[in-house]
């Protein structure tokens, strides 16, 4: 490469940077493969994740009680065994605002309908936050029950929370 080509190389990088900025600026820092890498930039905020607990052997009354990450009931289901990416699943649950029938059913389909012929699985939200000065608390909130007949919502949670995105 010559001096002249090197100089041209920097100009091309400069133009690319402008395109980069134009693409990521209106898209919250992300326009793959361009990124300003904003992950973990907002530290200390409460978080929400999700997991599935196998509650086949538990009663309705036990299932719908809110618990913590130290005393939850049911065995955690390893979603990857079903070919599902755990981060995808977690984001699906935590970022869905309107739990329409279609969106609820999509979770059952994610794992294959035959899975629920014998099992009852509870989708739970895990909410983590700083509690006081020196500890982290994680609430486990029962969210949706997946059964052979379909899905059930937590009767202890107001229906409006399942449609927080409002009418679209």
């Amino acid at each position, binding site marked *: *490469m*010559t*001096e002249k*080509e*090197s*100089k041209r*190389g*920097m100009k*091309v*990088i*400069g133009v*690319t940077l402008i395109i980069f900025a134009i693409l990521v600026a209106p*898209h919250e*820092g*992300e*326009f*793959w*493969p361009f*990124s*300003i*890498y*904003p*992950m*973990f*930039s*907002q*530290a*200390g905020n409460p*978080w929400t*994740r999700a*997991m*599935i607990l196998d509650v086949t052997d538990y009663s309705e009354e036990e299932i719908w009680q809110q618990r913590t*990450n130290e005393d939850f009931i049911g065995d*955690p289901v*390893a*979603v*990857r065994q079903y*070919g599902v*990416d*755990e*981060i*995808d*699943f*977690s*984001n*699906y649950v935590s*970022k869905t605002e309107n739990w329409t029938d*279609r*969106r609820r059913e*999509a979770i059952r*389909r*994610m794992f294959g309908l035959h899975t629920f012929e014998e099992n009852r699985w509870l989708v739970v939200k*895990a909410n*983590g*936050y*700083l509690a006081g000065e*020196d*500890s*982290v608390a*994680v609430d486990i909130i029962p969210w949706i029950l997946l059964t052979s007949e379909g899905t059930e919502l937590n009767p202890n949670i107001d229906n409006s929370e399942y449609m927080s995105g409002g009418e679209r």
Partner: protein
Amino acid sequence: MTWYEKIGHQLFEPKRDQTPGELIFFKVFELFVLFYTIKYAWEWGIYTQLRNTEVVLPLGVANYIDISLMFEWNLALINAAVITLLAVIAFARMGARWFYMVVIVLLHIQYVARFSQGEIPHSMNLIGMSVFAFAIGAIWFPGKKNMPRFVIGAIVFFIGLGYTSAFFAKMIGTGINWYDGRHLWLWISEKSIDVYSTIGYYEPNFLQELALSYLPVASVILLIGWLTELIGFTMWWKKLRPFTVTLLIGMHIGITMTMNIRFDAFVMQLILIGFPWYLLFDKFVQHTPKWIERTV
């Protein structure tokens, strides 16, 4: 000489003679990128076809087109096949110079279709940036004299920029107290739920237990990682590059141990572009193999 010309000298090294080792390394690197391009195209395509039914989070062009179209009619698999075909032809330099550009556009569509489910992963970004650098290189810097230098130099530039911008994103997003160890506690507990969800059980490792038991340890871990990101741009300088990249690889090992986040392709790529491997090839090879001459 202007400041940007000086950076250009460090990235593209116009005064250094080209050697057989450099061309061989370049083609090995391109093969690495080709492998991951095809791997991702199919993995994303198969997942999209099997699992995606709803768009949870539209990314990139999915903000403007209905990306759920890719969930039907095997479009994601067809896209993977087209990406594979074009990438292989581009690798062999048998097609048009803009083939890599088409590959990156199709790969972007594949990415946003696959990751319309809420996750925004970054472990594949370097492969994407590399394909993009090959696309620009093939169009504006074709030929063995210019393309290898431009492609590798551009990738080094954007990787360095990416780490440093990550530092500033944290500074802007949280402020100077970003390295407060309690933030690491929150992330460890967050990832513990992901681990439960992935494999069904979770046990903190030694480093996590140490960080959870001693706040200063957690703070120091975050501070070291954060400062390492800040100096990411120093990899633009040829002599500093191996040291900066070594620190960054160490940081990724730390991220894996504390937060259970693996960046396999990312780290492999850092290993490839961070060190002057061409010197090693030059020790054993006197002449450039003909097929490499033809395909660079």
